[in-house]
């Protein structure tokens, strides 16, 4: 008996694709129809995905769905199957949140552009493909979804080429590198088919467990890992991400950082934890952790050198993905908790930050940090949301970034002491240091764009309309909630995903019939999770409230004892409230972003020059980076894993 909700995954994916075509057919002229179809499709898909929380997360069910009823026969899966376990649904939820917020934001944000019919078509295709990618149980289907995703993403990147010709360049680089990535994935899929004669993930996992590894399988692993790594933009495959995120419209950048690179991460987790689960864990995990650590360091140092708001955010996206990958790569339960939780948080705060960047662009027409300044006075809501996002990504308590980074450090250091491997200590130190550098670069944005003095050109700036503020407020609230109530979030959202990743036997059994896993040597594993911290953040919230109340009370009741507060007259500039310039008449003078952190940049100028030159902007160089990365992964696979 099929439950009604078992149709939801397919309907949500297909609904988005169908809506994409409907928009193209009916929505090219009429903007109400166009936006109506998009919004309804996104709402419906998100609602159906979120509904699946009840059966999958609460009841622990795994939903399997065979397209056209082609169930496996004789122990072989022929049809295309969708299978939604905790891991897939977790990423499905991230995806739904992202595209829902982005579609609400898009309404006003994109209103000044032409050809919006194409925009929404591609938008819906991107959303549908990522959702399909995380729900599918078939490796070739995974490849198809990756291709649709890349295709839609590239077209969306180039969407604003009229105003910004750089968008074309970003799109082209993304397309070239993305197609190398897709080709590598396809190569991996083909080789995997060669050794197992099936495309079903569950069956591949079981067969690989029972038949062991041949060089072909190792090669397939290396190829698929590098292909998915290109899709998740980890170093050294990160170069197109910076260009594409920076030039795409902000609503699309939100999609990129919220779900496109998460899709790559999902693929890598699926690959290492489920498909190739019996490989030499320690070495694979060391590889992932090293790539992760490198990614977060390179990402954040590049971000420090940027002077475009969105390009800076793009490099931070890369850096935070490094955190996720590093933590997932630790291979421990705690690490997986930290990594997945950080993936969730990254979707929230980076989406929020990209939306604020979009709001700044909407209001001022530029994202160049050297031209901005003093926006806080004109755009208080955007500034507040930006500060929430900035504090969250820098891991300032009590926001969500702190909670997940906290878990990640614990996991990394636990791994270091347990394995006795000094490399993990270096990774831990890197992680902690990168956090401060993240803070530094967001201080730079805060002081350069939002605080400080207003240039004359920005005097007329207005706050963005409410429909653009709404998604920012929702994201900010979610950032705070995930930080304060992180225990329930970990237990009810992240926990099922972690157990799904750690125990693939149920996944295999659901797909291939019960008992299939055991006959192929996949034993169900139960895992205990002891969180090392025991801090209740609600307590802290209470404390913050108490102290703030007390201080305010003292301040208010003693207004006469205390000195008076002298506020400036609106509109007028008197000498008393003017900025102090050593007695000179105050003029516009603003320390812009590129001028900050001088000593730091000077001391490390050797490093900054080298890393800056490596990001040369030449498509060929970037392709070479990819080839080198693939070679390293391949060599590592054959030397350490065979």
């Amino acid at each position, binding site marked *: 008996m099929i439950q009604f909700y078992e149709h939801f995954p397919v309907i949500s994916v297909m609904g988005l694709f169908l809506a994409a075509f409907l928009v193209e057919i009916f929505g090219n002229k009429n903007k109400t129809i166009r936006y109506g179809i998009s919004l309804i499709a996104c709402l419906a898909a998100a609602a159906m995905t979120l509904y699946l929380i009840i059966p999958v997360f609460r009841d622990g069910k795994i939903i399997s769905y065979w397209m056209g009823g082609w169930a496996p026969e004789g122990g072989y899966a022929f049809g295309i199957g969708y299978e939604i376990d905790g891991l897939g649904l977790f990423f499905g939820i991230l995806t739904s949140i992202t595209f829902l917020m982005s579609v609400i934001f898009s309404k006003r944000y994109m209103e000044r552009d032409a050809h919006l019919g194409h925009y929404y078509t591609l938008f819906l295709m991107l959303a549908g493909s990522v959702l399909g990618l995380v729900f599918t149980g078939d490796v*070739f289907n995974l490849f*198809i979804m990756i*291709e649709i995703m*890349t*295709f839609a993403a*590239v*077209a969306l990147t*180039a969407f604003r*080429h009229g105003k910004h*010709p*750089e968008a*074309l*360049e*970003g*799109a*082209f*680089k993304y*397309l*070239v590198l993305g*197609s*190398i990535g*897709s*080709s590598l994935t*396809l*190569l991996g*899929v*083909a*080789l995997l*088919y*060669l050794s197992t*004669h099936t*495309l079903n993930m569950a069956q591949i996992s079981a067969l690989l467990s029972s038949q062991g590894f041949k060089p072909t399988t190792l090669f397939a692993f290396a190829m698929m890992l590098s292909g998915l790594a290109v899709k998740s933009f980890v170093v050294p495959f990160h170069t197109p991400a*910076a*260009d594409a995120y*920076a*030039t795409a419209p902000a609503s699309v950048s939100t999609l990129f950082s919220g779900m496109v690179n998460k899709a790559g991460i999902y693929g890598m987790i699926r690959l290492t934890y489920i498909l190739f689960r019996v490989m030499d864990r320690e070495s694979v995990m060391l590889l992932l952790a090293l790539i992760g650590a490198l990614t977060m360091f390179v990402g954040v140092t590049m971000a420090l*050198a*940027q002077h475009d708001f969105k*390009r800076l955010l793009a490099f931070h996206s890369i850096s935070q993905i490094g955190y996720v990958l590093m933590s997932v790569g630790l291979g421990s339960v705690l690490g997986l908790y930290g990594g997945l939780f950080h993936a969730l948080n990254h979707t929230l705060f980076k989406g929020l930050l990209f939306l604020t960047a979009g709001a700044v662009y909407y209001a001022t027409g530029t994202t160049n940090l050297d031209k901005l300044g003093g926006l806080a006075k004109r755009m208080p809501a955007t500034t507040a949301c930006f500060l929430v996002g900035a504090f969250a990504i820098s891991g300032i308590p009590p926001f969500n970034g702190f909670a997940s980074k906290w878990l990640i450090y614990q996991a990394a250091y636990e791994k270091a002491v347990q394995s006795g491997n000094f490399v993990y200590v270096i990774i831990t130190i890197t992680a902690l240091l990168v956090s401060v550098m993240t803070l530094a670069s967001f201080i730079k944005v805060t002081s350069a764009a939002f605080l400080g003095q207003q240039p004359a050109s920005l005097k007329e700036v207005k706050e963005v309309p409410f429909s653009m503020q709404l998604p920012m407020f929702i994201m900010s609230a979610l950032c705070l909630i995930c930080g304060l109530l992180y225990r329930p979030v970990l237990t009810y959202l992240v926990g099922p995903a972690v157990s799904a990743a750690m125990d693939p036997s149920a996944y295999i059994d659901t797909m291939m019939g019960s008992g299939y896993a055991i006959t192929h040597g996949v034993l169900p594993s139960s895992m205990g999770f002891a969180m090392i911290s025991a801090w209740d953040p609600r307590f802290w919230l209470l404390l913050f409230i108490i102290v703030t109340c007390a201080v305010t009370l003292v301040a208010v009741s003693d207004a006469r004892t205390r000195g008076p507060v002298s506020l400036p007259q609106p509109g007028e500039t008197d000498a008393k409230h003017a900025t102090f310039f050593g007695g000179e008449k105050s003029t516009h003078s603003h320390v812009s972003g590129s001028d900050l952190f001088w000593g730091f940049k000077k001391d490390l100028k050797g490093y900054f020059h080298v890393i*800056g030159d490596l*990001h*040369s*902007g*030449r*498509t*060929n160089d970037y*392709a*070479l980076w990819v*080839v080198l990365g693939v070679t390293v992964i391949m060599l590592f696979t054959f030397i350490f894993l065979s």
Partner: protein
Amino acid sequence: MILVNYIVSICLIALGLYVMCSKRELIKIVIGMGIMDYGINMLIVSIGFHENGTAPIYTLADIINGNLSFFVDPIPQALTLTSIVIGACVDAMALSLVIMIKRRYKTTDADEVRRLKG
């Protein structure tokens, strides 16, 4: 026979990557992407191929007479078809981007198309 297929397809993939890494002309980079695609398609077809295999189509008579023979795996061929279609789309997209770049940047040299860097 089949080994030649594998060697050629790997060579094609390597050639495609080489073209992408070394040729400055954007059109040539797109051609490199195409070559890599063909290499992979060829590899997939070769995976399913069996020497002296027949097409996987049977009539009732074949089954009754018992002259079933070794057949070529059809799934890789289906995969190849899909992948060719996708490859064609990607190439079309890439070429259209190159046209736009030519229009806006007045060049198709990768050395010049690098406003986004650092």
